[in-house]
């Protein structure tokens, strides 16, 4: 079966044999940055190439091959996000505030931030600090880690994350808030107050 499409007028050629050499690294990097997991990123890239192959006949040459493939990859990332979102829900989140009753919205007593003893070492050049931070980010629920990384580490625009993950901005800020309070607590217990 020949997947090379030749459109005489536009001279659009979809040369699938070079896809992996030309785009695998770009797409892999794109995916790793968003899902922060090398194995998942690999799977997403593979799924994207396969899906691209299946729908190669729909490629109209309106965009470049790479843009077209990335648009498929984006869909795959949203699907992945939806999956982790429904799978894990919010069960793993450690609550920091009362969520009902007359104390609703107040700090839960034993979750109140403590003052820090170990203030001296806040330099990220410190490898130990860096790996502790990574461990704490990894301990977040997958969805929170993903949104936190995109916003804070990769410094994406709010609008871009909302569009890519199909969430509202108030939704995003709640996730960021929960991620940061949980992360603060983890760093307090494992770095600042040990």
């Amino acid at each position, binding site marked *: 079966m020949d997947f090379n499409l030749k459109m005489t007028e536009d001279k659009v050629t979809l040369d*699938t044999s070079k896809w992996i050499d030309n785009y695998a690294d770009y797409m892999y990097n794109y995916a790793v940055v968003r899902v922060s997991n090398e194995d998942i990123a690999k799977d997403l890239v593979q799924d994207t190439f396969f899906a691209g*192959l299946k729908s190669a006949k729909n490629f109209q040459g309106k965009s470049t091959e790479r843009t077209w493939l990335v648009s498929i990859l984006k869909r795959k990332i949203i699907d992945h996000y939806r999956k982790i979102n429904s799978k894990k829900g919010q069960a793993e989140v450690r609550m920091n505030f009362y969520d009902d009753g007359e104390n609703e919205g107040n700090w839960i007593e034993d979750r109140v931030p403590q003052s820090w003893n170990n203030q001296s070492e806040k330099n990220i050049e410190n490898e130990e600090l860096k790996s502790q931070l990574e461990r704490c980010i990894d301990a977040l629920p997958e969805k929170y880690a993903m949104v936190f990384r995109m916003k804070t580490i990769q410094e994406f625009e709010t609008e871009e994350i909302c569009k890519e993950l199909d969430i509202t901005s108030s939704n995003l*800020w709640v996730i*960021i*808030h929960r991620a940061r*309070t949980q992360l*603060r607590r983890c760093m307090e217990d494992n770095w600042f107050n040990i």
Partner: protein
Amino acid sequence: MLKKYKITCDEATTICDKNQYGEASFLEKMKLNLHFLNCKTCYSYTKQNMSLTKLYKGHASSCQSLKHCMTDEDKLALKKEFEKIKL
């Protein structure tokens, strides 16, 4: 009259977190500052949050310089799978 601007600790720290990215609105920042008058806990949360932001920023710049590439073996395996599907 100030009741309108009263917020819970949960809301206050949400605004504080948003503000770490410079994206809190004027009204939100006003509510946050008003909340600090009564709440030392959220005030100290905010101070610690600022130093955490610095930490995260340092981490961000060291992460962003990394480019992730697929290994040659992975690419080869992918190519093989790809050829199988094509047939």
